[in-house]
């Protein structure tokens, strides 16, 4: 299971690939909207992280993501031994 720092790194790298620019100074408290990532961009990032981590986040939870922390919390919850779904 990836640690928190590693998850943040995965998010940074994935976001950079999808949005095609770097995000060097992200913290967990950063709002997604401040990163200039639109709704579909965020869904693409989530989708890519799901594939990398072999998890699946529920659609209804994605609408609640406001900050990087919100996303990492969801990912961490799903990544734990009890949270993994058969993918």
């Amino acid at each position, binding site marked *: 299971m990836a640690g928190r720092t590693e998850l943040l790194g995965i998010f940074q790298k994935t976001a950079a690939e999808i949005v095609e620019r770097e995000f060097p100074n992200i913290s967990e408290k950063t709002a997604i909207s401040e990163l200039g990532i639109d709704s*579909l961009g965020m869904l693409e990032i989530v989708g890519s992280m799901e594939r990398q981590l072999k998890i699946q986040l529920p659609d*209804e939870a994605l609408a609640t993501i406001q900050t990087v922390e919100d996303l990492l919390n969801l990912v961490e919850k799903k990544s734990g031994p009890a949270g993994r779904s058969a993918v």
Partner: protein
Amino acid sequence: MSPSPSARPCVPGDTARQARLYEMYKTFFDKAEEERRWNPFRDIPYEKINAGVPDSLIVVAETFCCVESYLPDYVSKGINVVRPYFGQAWFSANWAYEESKHSVALLEYLLRSGRRTPEAMWDLQTRLMRVEWELPFETARRMTIYGCFQEMATFVIYVKQEQTAKTQGDECLATIFRLNARDEIAHCRFYEDVVKVLLEEDREGTLRDIAHVAKHFQMPGVGIVPDYDARVKIMREEGKVDRAVFLQKVFFPVLKYLEVTRQELQQAVLSDREERRTHAAE
């Protein structure tokens, strides 16, 4: 994102699609005639206007009126994109009639409430018509998909503003928002049903177009309605519409109705990106 090479083009003479779209139009029209017709001069309780509602709510009503006022552009450009398909073109004609009532009802409200003068509203109309709305997408398929998201978003916003108007004790404005919302969701359903047909015909291409439209989606007033950013800020604050609401109430419900999963859409995005990289490398 370029159209998939395997996309089936809209061509006149596509008998199966013509027949299906006509049946869909007949159902839509018949139901509208039976259940949904209303008269903006007779069926709105203008006597129940609350002339003391906050300015912010008047700005909301005026902004809706502005956006709806580009009807000549929506109709003329939109109907030509779907012209080859009788059922969808005739739907567009009926859509124009239904949408025309929205701006009329809002204009009447603004004038009869005394919150806007005739001079101010006609001056505003003149300013609005100095700019033309342009099609955001070039194909009938993409415009139909756009219609799904745009009509659903407009429905959601109207419903939220109806609640605000009720809270502010303006039964007239609440009624206008409710009737407008009822039309918008009916329009959304028609577009969604057409997209279901398109998905049956060319799922891969239609998925790519859904992803493309979602990525580049903007509401129709962006860039043309005067002071749009300031107006939208007020509307968002009044109606509490934000990214979360867009995903929860617009994007995911449309996907669910179309029986398209988020994962399928993402796969279409990836495939399209790979294809573009391959073409760029050649």
